[in-house]
């Protein structure tokens, strides 16, 4: 099977594995980009093609389809932030984020949804961000869709997704078929472990190879530590290599100078980098208002095998409850892939109860409800702080308002799963049980104590923390992702989102970054 990464390296791509460096290094380029995910990867291609010399930095390693092992025990430590063990400060929410070349796009489940109109309306009202008329993101969504082969999934949903669809049909709830960024997908269900056949059109196999073919440099296994800045300009980026466990190590210093600096390390790491750099923060919003789409999980047992590990992980979603007429917290309904570790760590109970559920692994249908945070006063997200090692911790308080939404989400998922034909349903909650009918589940879930550690919460979408706003008093960057105070610094990742989205974020990031990279290239050309 062709491996575009190994082929590119053989052609002479400029790749430096920082973990192998043993003395200080200095580099220079027109533009340095920290992070190679949806934001950094796309920006690298656009800016290289615009004629700029680009250096990309990535904390993770350069892994390709020849390296990916189709087992969670390899994928989580090597492709995910903190070995997939990242959590909020009080450990109340588990967070999945990619950490490898291509970032989360290398391991995400390919769901591609344009920014909901309600979200854009809210941004205009609250943050002065008018993405309409000549500022519309639609042309950029079209460009990204063309570049990454984003289109509606035409194959039959796997049975895990089909249960979501059937339940919606039975109850008359809204549902949509998901658009996916794939080309030649064999419906394997391995997206979260790195696509072994390069069908997923992640940054790893699309924009990053183009940038490297265009002369860009990639430095992997490197941790960006801080920007040195003076007055209104960044003067240098300081970084260090990481060790075999991806921990920053001392002894070798890397300094990179550039005309322009782009932070694109994701919505936890970018605010952390800016906090370590002590950049100006007159709005006080740096690291604040970090959103997660905190997600509830509901398991269901079906008489027939569901095999939720096989087939496209996400191909159907329901927006029935995303934008409720009440002030309650909205939530989006989707399903996750069902692999052994992901399931075993989330399933309720221990000993025989847990083992009994795991033995019915193939008959488990699993649903998730993503709470839409960042809109109501009572759901203002979390705060990125630095620990004593300078590493980020996300303090995300769990409010009564959020738990009220969580209960509604568990109820909706149970109703849907029974409507789809489940024999029994169990909310993933320390006090949850297997319930054999919707009335029984409804009564039990209505009485569950909704509290931290008892209610299992997870997230795969981190947003905010360096939010954009037209007015410098309300945000860290402007509508073009340019830092309000430091003129040669941009932020091109999910941290610029002023709220969560009510949709999976990758396509929103592609649209924004395509627009902002193009504007940045024009500005840099005009200022040479």
């Amino acid at each position, binding site marked *: *099977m062709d491996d575009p990464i190994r082929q590119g390296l053989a052609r002479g791509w400029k790749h430096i594995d920082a973990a192998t460096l043993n003395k200080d290094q200095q580099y220079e380029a027109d533009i340095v980009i920290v992070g190679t995910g949806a934001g950094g990867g796309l920006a690298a291609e656009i800016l290289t093609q615009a004629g700029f010399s680009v250096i990309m930095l990535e904390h993770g390693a350069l892994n390709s*389809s*020849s*390296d*990916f*092992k*189709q*087992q*969670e*025990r*390899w994928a*989580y*430590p090597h492709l995910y932030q*903190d*070995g997939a*063990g*990242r959590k909020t400060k*009080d*450990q109340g929410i*588990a967070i999945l984020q990619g950490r490898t070349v291509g970032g989360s796009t290398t391991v995400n489940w390919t769901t591609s949804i344009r920014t909901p109109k309600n979200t854009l309306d809210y941004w205009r009202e609250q943050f002065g961000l008018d993405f309409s008329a000549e500022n519309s993101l639609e042309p950029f969504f079209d460009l990204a869709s063309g570049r990454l082969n984003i289109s509606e999934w035409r194959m039959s949903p796997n049975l895990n997704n089909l249960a979501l669809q059937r339940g919606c049909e039975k109850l008359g709830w809204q549902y949509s078929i998901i658009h996916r960024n794939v080309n030649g997908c064999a419906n*394997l269900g*391995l997206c979260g472990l790195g696509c*072994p*056949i390069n069908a997923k059109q992640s940054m790893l196999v699309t924009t990053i190879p183009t940038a490297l073919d265009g002369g860009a440099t990639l430095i992997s296994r490197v941790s960006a530590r801080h920007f040195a800045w003076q007055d209104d300009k960044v003067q240098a980026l300081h970084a260090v290599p990481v060790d075999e*466990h*991806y*921990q920053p190590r001392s002894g070798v210093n890397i300094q990179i100078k550039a005309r322009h600096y782009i932070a694109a390390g994701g919505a936890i790491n970018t605010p952390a980098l800016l906090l370590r750099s002590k950049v100006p923060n007159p709005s006080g919003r740096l690291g604040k208002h970090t959103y997660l789409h905190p997600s509830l999980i509901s398991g269901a047992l079906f008489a027939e095998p569901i095999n939720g*590990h096989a087939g496209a992980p996400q191909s159907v979603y329901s927006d029935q409850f995303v934008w409720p007429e009440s002030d309650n917290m909205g939530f989006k309904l989707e399903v996750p892939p069902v692999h*052994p*570790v992901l*399931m*075993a*760590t989330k399933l309720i109970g*221990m*000993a*025989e*109860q*847990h*083992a*009994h559920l*795991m*033995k019915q*692994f*193939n008959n488990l249908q699993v649903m998730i409800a993503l709470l839409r945070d960042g809109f109501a006063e009572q759901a203002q997200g979390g705060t990125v702080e630095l*620990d*004593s*090692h300078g*590493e980020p*911790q996300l303090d995300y308080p769990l409010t009564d308002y959020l738990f009220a939404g969580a209960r509604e989400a568990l109820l909706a998922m149970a109703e849907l799963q029974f409507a789809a034909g489940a024999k029994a349903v169990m909310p993933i909650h*320390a006090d949850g049980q297997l319930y054999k009918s919707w009335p029984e589940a409804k009564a039990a879930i209505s009485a569950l104590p909704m509290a*931290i*550690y008892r209610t299992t919460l997870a997230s795969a979408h981190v947003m905010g923390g360096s939010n954009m706003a037209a007015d410098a008093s309300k945000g860290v960057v402007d509508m073009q992702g340019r830092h309000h105070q430091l003129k040669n610094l941009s932020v091109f990742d999910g941290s610029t989102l002023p709220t969560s989205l009510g949709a999976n974020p990758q396509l929103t990031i592609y649209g924004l970054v395509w627009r902002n990279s193009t504007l940045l290239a024009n500005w840099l050309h005009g200022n040479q």
Partner: protein
Amino acid sequence: MNRRQFIMTSLGAGLGLSLGITLYPVLTASQSSQQTAAEMVFDAFLPALLMGALPADHQLAQQQLLATRKAAIEFLPFLPVTQQQQLAQLFLLLEQELTRLALSGNWLSLAELPVQQRLSLLSGWRDSYLALLQQAYCGLRELLFGAYYGQPPHWAALNYQAVEFNRYG
């Protein structure tokens, strides 16, 4: 206060002090004693957590327990350093408390502590009013279940097989 409540309370107080104020035992304990403590804690809880999942054959079950302990130990360095330090602190304290529990129950060693009692200890943490004990329960459970179900030889009961494009190991 019964014996379990006493253990829970003293353990909670120990954890509170350790995570909130000082990392003294971690800073003074050698790398090897930290690993020994972790292994002892894993050895104590794995047979309880995995009851019903382990094969009936004793020798095979022992092999799976050792493989799981090894996988859990190998995973720890991928966690953030702060989290590693907190876990190391937890393991050192648990090692002491488990030993005390075994001795106060007139068992000659931790290995003789009945599995049901180990499960009761875990349930006690899960249902504790102390956040730190609840965290300890959630963290240990996740780490150990992840380490067990990450391994193909343990998938037989699941009837699950991973498609293999590139060989592991």
